[in-house]
């Protein structure tokens, strides 16, 4: 237990005398039954076996921000970073602001935000490694950096930007609610440091003395239904109808009088000019995802085509699998898939902890996707290997692995789409994510098969023509699916407004020229695929057309997928002018300002695969522990 100093001021102590029974969402504030086995256990903070004497230890707690009072002095952020020893580029709590009006009728509304220790912690459910736990003690959602492998998925799903991915350490960390202070009845450090009587903390739904409001909305704050956050606001002063952000995000907030809250709308702060921005688009840190998703979809598409087509006895597929093309095709597919997986794994903050990706099959779509794709890769590899040998035995084995590959691969693809259906990222949360992924599985798979196999089939004009028609139809269908998705997506983003429309605005301006190029490429590809399927242009021309189609489509989907990753605007809270301003962060990285440590901006880099650490883990983990670990993945303790 930490020591409470003798002159600790009164304002530092928790104040809840009475508490309510239920939260506004209808959940119990008392988080466990009185006889629960979860009670009277130590939190083992730094291996201290003590148990805190806080009378409200098993009640859900939360922060209260009185935005009428916040002056944006950074004391809360500083106290937090001082206590948690965070470097400049990491902050568990940040203050951003929105502003409105015209001088001197000007108003700035500061918003201090950390983790909201949600009732429905999407971070916990998203994390593939199981690094998160929601504790019965205080309802704190805590994350263990020692388990984390630095994929950053929790930072995607959290609507509040609470988990912090450290590009230097390669791991996530976040607000720990200062549970060490709560154990001795002290408020969290940030609250005790507040210089404006703005930030407070207590059992959820309790109102600090002097406050008159306890609401869940404030301009810039996302829909509380996403995660049921345990934060309450007071904001009683009249605000302007329109509140703008000072950071580079093209979003402002407009008061909707019918519901009395602010909704995000597009702020065209960079005009309407269209730019290329190739470097930003293709060189983004997410390019590993572009390569992995496209590569996997291509290989999976080709694989499904070969296996399912084989099962259905499709003439084209049979002619391919029995031709000299088969082995080179499998080889190319293997290389693409292996490269994609390698890129993805090395994109992790801690690549050597890759095996932890399966830990959270219970909740995490990402865990399921990882399991699916891994199963696919295993099935596919077995299929490739045993296809090298002749004989019924090997064929059976190959078919067995093919079955595993088909089932795992399909599941993997399904969850690959699911992981982008994130409420905090409206631009992704649309069925277009699926139409693009499924469409690309079709067209890239068919294109890949054709690109390798067609030259082996040219001896027979008829076989070639048939192959072009079969494969070309799939390419055509895939392209069409993707195009329809884009059209409807664009329309829906506009209708829906908010962050999705903001992303679309950036797509058509910041990346406007690249976006138009993508559209033209997609359209041209579709026409070309249509022509190749519909007209018999002769073998030479068909082959030439095919490779042209390959190049055009790859260019189109590469731009498309890159746009998908760079454009997404999360629902996160507004930043300030420098701090938590994506525009300034990008500027600092481009110009080299980021090389000065005290800028608070660091470069994003890749991390080493630490073989030593992996071996050490293997050495120090007993078979029993390993078995326990695996058991934990599949056997889940029930909780009360």
């Amino acid at each position, binding site marked *: 237990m930490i020591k409470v100093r003798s002159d600790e001021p009164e304002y530092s102590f928790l104040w809840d005398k009475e508490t309510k029974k239920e939260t506004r969402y209808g959940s119990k504030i008392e988080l466990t039954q009185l006889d629960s086995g979860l009670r009277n256990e130590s939190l083992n903070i730094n291996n201290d076996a003590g148990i805190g004497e806080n009378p409200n230890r098993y009640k859900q707690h939360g922060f209260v921000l009185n935005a009428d009072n916040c002056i944006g002095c950074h004391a809360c952020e500083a106290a937090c970073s001082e*206590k948690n020893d965070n470097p400049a580029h990491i902050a568990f709590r940040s203050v951003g602001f929105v502003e409105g009006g015209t*001088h001197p009728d000007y*108003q700035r509304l500061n918003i201090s935000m950390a983790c909201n220790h949600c009732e429905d912690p999407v971070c916990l459910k998203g994390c593939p490694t199981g690094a998160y736990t929601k504790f019965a003690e205080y309802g704190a959602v805590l994350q263990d950096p020692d388990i984390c492998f630095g994929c950053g998925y929790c930072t995607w799903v959290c609507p509040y930007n609470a988990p912090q991915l450290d590009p230097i350490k390669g791991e996530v960390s976040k607000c720990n609610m200062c549970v060490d202070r709560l154990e001795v009845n002290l408020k969290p450090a940030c609250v005790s440091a507040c210089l404006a009587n703005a930030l407070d903390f207590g059992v959820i739904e309790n109102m600090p003395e002097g406050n008159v409001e306890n609401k869940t909305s404030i301009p810039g704050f996302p829909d509380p239904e996403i995660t049921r956050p345990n934060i309450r606001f007071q904001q009683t002063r009249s605000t302007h109808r329109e509140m703008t952000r000072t950071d580079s995000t093209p979003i402002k907030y407009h008061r909707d009088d019918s519901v009395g809250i602010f909704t995000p709308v597009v702020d065209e702060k960079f005009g309407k000019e269209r730019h290329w921005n190739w470097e930003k688009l293709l060189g983004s840190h997410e390019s590993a995802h572009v390569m992995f998703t496209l590569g996997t979809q291509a290989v999976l598409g080709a694989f499904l085509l070969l296996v399912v087509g084989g099962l259905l006895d499709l003439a084209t597929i049979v002619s391919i699998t029995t031709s000299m093309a088969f082995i080179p095709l499998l080889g190319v597919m293997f290389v693409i898939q292996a490269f994609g997986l390698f890129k993805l794994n090395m994109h992790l903050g801690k690549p050597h902890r890759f095996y932890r990706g399966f830990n959270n099959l219970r909740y995490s779509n990402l865990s399921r996707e990882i399991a699916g794709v891994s199963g696919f890769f295993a099935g596919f590899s077995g299929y490739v290997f045993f296809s090298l040998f002749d004989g019924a035995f090997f064929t059976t084995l190959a078919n067995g692995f093919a079955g595993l590959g088909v089932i795992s691969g399909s599941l993997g693809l399904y969850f690959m789409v699911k992981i982008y259906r994130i409420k905090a990222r409206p631009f992704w949360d649309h069925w277009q994510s699926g139409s693009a992924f499924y469409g690309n599985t079709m067209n890239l798979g068919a294109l890949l098969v054709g690109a390798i196999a067609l030259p082996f089939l040219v001896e027979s004009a008829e076989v070639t023509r048939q192959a072009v028609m079969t494969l070309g139809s799939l390419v055509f269908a895939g392209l069409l699916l993707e195009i329809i998705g884009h059209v409807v997506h664009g329309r829906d983003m506009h209708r829906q407004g908010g962050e999705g429309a903001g992303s679309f605005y950036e797509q058509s301006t910041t990346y406007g020229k690249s976006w138009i190029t993508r559209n033209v490429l997609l359209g041209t590809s579709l026409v070309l695929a249509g022509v190749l399927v519909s007209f018999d242009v002769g073998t030479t021309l068909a082959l030439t057309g095919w490779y042209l189609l390959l190049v055009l489509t790859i260019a189109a989907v590469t731009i498309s997928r890159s746009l998908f990753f760079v454009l997404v605007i999360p629902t996160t809270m507004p930043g300030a002018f420098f701090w938590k301003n994506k525009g300034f962060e990008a500027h600092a990285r481009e110009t080299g300002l980021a090389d000065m440590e005290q800028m608070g901006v660091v470069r994003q880099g890749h991390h080493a695969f630490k073989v030593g650490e992996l071996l050490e883990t293997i050495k120090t983990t007993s078979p029993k522990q390993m078995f326990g670990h695996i058991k934990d993945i599949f056997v889940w303790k029930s909780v009360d």
Partner: protein
Amino acid sequence: MLFGRNKKNPIKIVDKEVVKWTYSTCGYCSTGCSIEIGSNAEGKPVSSRGVGGADVNRGKLCVKGIFEHELFDSPGRGNNPLIRDDISKGYSETDWDSAMDHMASEISRIQETYGRDSFAVVSTGQLMTEEFYTLGKLTRGVIGTNNYDGNTTLCMASAVSGYKRSFGSDGPPGCYEDLEQTDCMIAWGSNLPEQHPIIYWRIKAARDKRHFPLIVVDPRVTMFAQQADMHLAITPGTDVVLQNALIHVILDEGLEDREYIKANTVGFEQLEIEVAKYDPVTASKICGIDEDTIRNVARIYAKAGAATSIWTMGINQSTHGSDGVVGVNNLNLVTGNIGKPGGTSLSITGQCNAMGTREWSSCSGLPGYRALENPDDRAEIGKFWNVDPEFFPKKRGLAQTDIFPAIELGEIKGLWLVATNPMTSMPNTARIRKTLEKLDFLVVQDSYVDVETTQYAHLYLPAATWAEKEGVFTNTERRVNITRQVTDPHGNSKSDLAIFNELAKRFKQAEKVNFPEKPAEVFEEMTHLSKGRLVDISGMTHDLIEENRGIQWPYTKEDADKGEPIKAGGKRLYTEPGTFRYADGMAKLIPLPFIDNNEVPDDKYPFWLNTGRLVEHFHTRTKTGKVGNNNKYSPIPFMELNPDAAKELGIRSQEYVRVISKRGDAIIMAQLTQRVPKNMIFVPFHFHDCVNRLTLGLLDPHSRQPAYKQSAIRLERIEDQKAAAQMSMERRTY
């Protein structure tokens, strides 16, 4: 756990393993917060926290104080003395003995060649009071130059001058308790949430308990303005007009405190004649505040049971700085609001020990608020120091802002800068560059070797910082508080006290003068000199100060002998009628005619340039620019620019803009905000090679303080943003 893992791992929370907390006083602003520095078992300072039982800050600290333990081993600290004979050459390291010998011989050479006053000393508000006192003794009593001043001329000189003119002495009459007990407060050009957040918190807490009207006078919609009941967005540089108009209404409506005026002031008639010219209609045309508002404010203020005015640089840093302070005092004297709970004129001070240097450094006179102009004071100090009183000048020499022009004209050949950075802080830095180039000998004594002024120095002396040494600061409310030593001086740096004492040893004149080595011994010497003075600290000792988390002066030997517990706060000056420091005990009401001599915007330079502070930075960023968790909130310079003005100029958010004044230009990133009016930009002053390339800094006639906040500029859009970014980046090394 509710859900998540099956097995609970132990929770890891950072434990800094502090084994010892050392009591100190924050070394940033003059709020004077009590701070404890936590050291781990190796003795390394690893943590900071506000002292819970201290009356000033009651456990709180601002963003700077929270990371103050990171200062000790921050980048850019100096390790060894550096020397060179020509500023075009590189430095070489030297040892302390050689450095001090060289310095003493250069001072002697310059003084022998060009006269005693040709060597100037410019000090600071950053040192311990014991160090200021010692430097004063060395400069006035041994080296004997009359061109000796502090950088407080850039921040507090107008307050000093205004207090002296009104009350007969420097010394803020009020205390923080007044800010809680008042019934009405006007903040003149003071943005507490940004500049003095702890004081803001105390007012906020008081107003949450008992609301009283808060009126903020500021051209910008600062956070304080936003939290106020009334915000008066005044035209820059016209505060005196508003003050005159307020008094006009008060007298016109008979709201003045006749009894108080009679018992405490002289000059009422002259004041009445002058303010008669400032009826609200006339005034509103000049200061931009409408006549109704002027009348309203005057009535609220005059009718309040107790009313308080605070101010900071919005008043001090203008051509009417001293007048503005006198104007505040006039307003309070006319309404009987000096020396009573909740009624005061309180200048919210800047540097941690600006007050200490005013009291004890001898910069503008002799220690303990004594004047060079007073023969008795000269005699008393001469006797105490064992220096011939005739050695002292009979009149104060040049102020800091006049020392630089004297260098420019060749009257001053040698300069010693102690913990101040004129290359960033002085207006019109282009002129300062040229000026510094002309020096025969420049010594820079600073904790940081990368302080920009070292570009022009011949000798650099690495000084210990803050809690690497021991001594006292005086804060805004006259509270003497102590900093205990937490760690050894960085590298081979020495405390400023040790440096002064070492230098003193090299002068023959110092042989008969006592220079105690220990801060506590120096303090004791000061307590003797303080007896019977306004600034009486004779009852204090270092230990007693720590025990009480600071003691407000006056605290006399007699008080101490009574053995009563010392009040935590709430001590005021001038609480009895007719106890002001003029010989007749009366305060002066001084008429303030307004002459508009500012550089106001015109067709060529259509924008006001306003400057000011940010909460995360301190002064010229030598400290906070290296603490990432401070610096990151504003790592590069920016300007607040009105979006409507930006639109007309084609400037977008986060673009670099060229700002041009009649002095020069600067490249600054634009933040578009309606916080500023359409014809004004605001630029923080903390950044090197930035806003002070532009400022004019006309001098206040009384205080010689520069008017940083009123200049005219124009803006030019920059086509090549990449080159601008490069240029901006090259101008900062931290």
